[in-house]
């Protein structure tokens, strides 16, 4: 098991990044012009990387499936972005941000990467402000911060409830500037369907032009995957409809290891499911938990009356309400981390105390906050979120408590990368949500935006140079070579095979069925018997999909059904790997809750002696079981302890 080498620099954790930068190789500007880099995805990680690499003078090609880079799903992030600026003078530091992230990730994360993330966090804020990102400000004209997602310091910068949008527009503007300058070329409405390796190194990709159906070959000296997370394996999630794992999965099939695939984040505050036609779930920002109080009725008779609409929530006396987070976790109350809050909601609903017509929801109540702070203050903090809720549910949170329930939101797992963010394929990098690197078994709020931009603006531009410095004598690649021809042919064959399936069932139907299996057996709570059942069902589904999917239209035209079919085929394979990963990890940690491993109080029970490792899976062929490799995690700075938010 020596194949995984994270290549973490020597020295104290606080000095590793500086030491690395001082010792890494540089590429001279004249040589940068001769080097091509492909970036896949234009979210925070991809757009910031492409812009920064273009600015350095590399030739960059950037790909996105959307019609424009500005629509990548980072745009939907609401709450904020963390940084250790310590502007509020409340005791924050890079160390504390590092510590909180490791603890929040339930100690299943690499110290060196997280420390670097905390160190570069401040630079991100500086850069975004310089780009014109309109962060919230005080009347003094200086930036304001809020406490967010279980942090005891106020380190979150935000732009009302649209922080992701504003940060992405900043990165998009930087990218647009480089496109205009000619250093970056944009390929929009493209699905990247395969990686091309030459002599074991990543040297290009095969893409499908979604408008014409043309299969394109693109070569480069290095390839950067920034295609986001894979929450859509659950069908219903807060991800965009098009969010998919396909580029990362094609890399996995070509030898890049996939780490901790079962680590998924179920976000506690989403709008509950309304019915069978539901196509996606909408998140309500976690910031709402700063002022909202979560509760369900304490008495079963009130639950029944509520469901029969005999009473309204406000009719239930204070003493008859169960503020279960405040009850179970007095120190953190409604601000416990996401995994803890989600499980607590499931526990109450499973016990029969859920509200709403389905009984699968809990209240998030602002009545106290409105009384304490006033209507206007609440409006300025959450106005757009309240509006959004009202549009979807047709009820006003000013008048009646919101109803929320956990939903799949983020995937901590992803392609395994070393300290330089390189996968196990030389020259192939993975950044942002696409890699597994910085959040362990649970991500803290406002840390995804931080990681995406850290990787793209401030980490990858350094580490990729260290690799490309050895490639300056490598001439540009000919896409007519046998490697490209074979890869393109394989993609074409696969598309034809899917298209020619003689079935009757739509892609969406298969996707929905996969989602149900994953949510039931590999969602908020998992157990060995359920996971075994899931493996069986997924195998069946995969076979049925192969012979039973129906694809209308042709391959050489705009055809959303063939796009979706490729994505769902990969999701089915990924689902199987997630289940295997959940099964091998016989402990509970962060978002991974195995019912067999819990404390007497129902909290996650880690097993540090046996499972303090990153589980990285290696593809062994279509019909063979993937092979597990372990990267043992070393904790030199932080002492492992049971997470307690009581």
């Amino acid at each position: 098991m020596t194949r995984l080498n994270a290549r973490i620099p020597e020295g104290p954790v606080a000095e590793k990044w500086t030491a690395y930068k001082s010792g890494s190789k540089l590429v001279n500007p004249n040589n940068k012009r001769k080097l091509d880099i492909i970036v896949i995805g234009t979210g925070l990680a991809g757009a910031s990387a492409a812009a920064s690499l273009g600015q350095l003078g590399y030739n960059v090609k950037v790909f996105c499936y959307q019609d424009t880079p500005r629509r990548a799903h980072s745009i939907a992030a609401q709450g904020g972005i963390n940084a250790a600026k310590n502007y509020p003078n409340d005791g924050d530091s890079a160390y504390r941000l590092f510590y909180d992230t490791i603890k929040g990730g339930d100690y299943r994360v690499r110290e060196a990467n997280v420390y670097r993330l905390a160190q570069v966090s401040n630079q991100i804020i500086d850069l975004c402000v310089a780009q014109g990102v309109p962060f919230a400000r005080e009347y003094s004209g200086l930036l304001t911060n809020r406490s967010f997602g279980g942090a005891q310091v106020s380190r979150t910068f935000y732009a009302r409830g649209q922080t992701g949008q504003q940060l992405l527009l900043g990165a998009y503007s930087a990218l647009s500037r480089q496109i205009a300058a000619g250093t970056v070329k944009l390929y929009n409405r493209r699905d990247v369907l395969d990686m091309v390796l030459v002599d074991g190194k990543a040297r290009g990709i095969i893409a499908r032009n979604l408008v014409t159906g043309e299969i394109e070959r693109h070569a480069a000296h290095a390839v950067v995957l920034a295609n986001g997370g894979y929450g859509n394996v659950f069908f219903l999630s807060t991800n965009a409809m098009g969010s998919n794992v396909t580029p990362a999965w094609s890399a996995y099939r070509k030898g890049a290891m996939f780490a901790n695939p079962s680590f998924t984040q179920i976000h506690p505050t989403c709008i509950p499911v309304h019915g069978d036609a539901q196509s996606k779930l909408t998140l309500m920002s976690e910031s709402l938990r700063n002022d909202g109080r979560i509760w369900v009725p304490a008495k079963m008779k009130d639950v029944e009356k509520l469901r029969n609409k005999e009473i309204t929530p406000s009719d239930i006396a204070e003493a008859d309400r169960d503020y279960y987070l405040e009850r179970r976790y007095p120190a953190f109350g409604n601000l416990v981390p996401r995994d803890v809050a989600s499980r607590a909601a499931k526990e109450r609903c499973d016990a029969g105390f859920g509200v709403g017509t389905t009984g699968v929801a809990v209240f998030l109540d602002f009545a106290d906050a409105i009384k304490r702070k006033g209507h206007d203050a609440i409006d300025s903090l959450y106005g757009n979120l309240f509006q959004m809720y009202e549009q979807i549910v047709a009820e006003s949170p000013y008048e009646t408590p919101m109803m929320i329930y956990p939903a799949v939101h983020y995937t901590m797992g992803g392609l395994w990368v070393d300290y330089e963010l390189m996968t196990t394929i030389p020259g192939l990098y993975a950044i942002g949500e696409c890699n597994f690197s910085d959040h362990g078994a649970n991500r803290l709020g406002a840390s995804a935006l931080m990681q995406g931009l850290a990787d793209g603006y401030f980490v990858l531009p350094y580490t990729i140079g260290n690799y490309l410095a050895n490639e300056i004598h490598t001439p540009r690649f000919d896409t007519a070579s046998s490697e490209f021809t074979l890869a393109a042919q394989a993609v074409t064959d696969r598309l034809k095979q899917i298209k020619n399936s003689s079935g009757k069932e739509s892609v969406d139907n298969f996707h929905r069925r996969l989602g149900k299996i994953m949510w039931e057996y590999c969602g908020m709570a998992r157990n060995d018997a359920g996971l075994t059942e899931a493996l069986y069902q997924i195998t069946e589904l995969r076979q049925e999909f192969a012979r039973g999917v129906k694809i209308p239209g042709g391959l050489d035209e705009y055809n959303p059904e063939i796009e979706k079919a490729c994505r769902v085929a990969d999701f089915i394979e990924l689902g199987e790997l997630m289940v295997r990963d959940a099964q091998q990890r016989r402990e509970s940690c962060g978002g991974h809750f195995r019912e067999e491993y819990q404390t007497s109080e129902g909290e996650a029970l880690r097993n540090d002696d046996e499972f303090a490792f990153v589980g990285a899976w290696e593809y062994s062929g279509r019909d063979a079981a993937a092979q597990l490799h372990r990267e043992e995690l070393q904790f030199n700075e932080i002492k492992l302890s049971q997470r307690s938010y009581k």
Partner: protein
Amino acid sequence: MNFTLKIWRQKNVTAKGEMVSYDVSGISADSSFFEMLDTLNQKLITTGGDPVAFDHDCREGICGTCSLYINGRPHGPAKGVTTCQLHMRAFKDGDTIFIEPWRAKAFPIIRDLIVDRSALDKIIQAGGYVSVNTGGVPDANTIPVPKEKSDAAFDAATCIGCGACVAACSNAAAMLFIGAKVSHLALLPQGRVEAATRVQKMVACMDEQGFGNCSNTYACEFDCPKGISVANIARMNREFLGAKLFSEKERVIKESL
């Protein structure tokens, strides 16, 4: 709920398009407009028909991908929402609903209800940014920005680039889109430095891409899902005029030397 849908079908940019009628039934009032169209497409797929192509992605009103012209209005009858946030409760049972793509010279049709809006990207590439590099910037709190200005910049910056303003405009003008970006950056000290060149480049590109001019009907503001104000068009005009006059003055001074 049951509906009759009249939908624009067009195979590609060169093909001739037509309105085609479909019936959908058993739709929940809580379904979104797209979930209703999903139901139609599922029916078409399983019965050997040709599903309707439409653009959509986040389905939570922020990515700006969706772009349907419903009953003669961009994003349909509800105010301040994108198509993806429109719910079927906004319609009456038995309604006939007309669904068309954005119509503008600068937005060629790709298929059915999908148009190519890359002209908007071109306008941003022409100057919709602050020319700052990664690295070498001052601490974020070095330059205080008055809260009112920062808030006004934010209001302009919430534009999602969907193009509803263009679709709403009788001249297919993109001035609300450009006005929003010009305002967002011109209101901030960080963007002020390049304000004069930015507005000129963006307006020149707008003309080049085939967008029309503004004739002050305010239809864009009315149909903007994010409530972007036409005051941003006024600010852009002021910035543009100021920039032109200033450059004219510079030219005269230079020639007199």
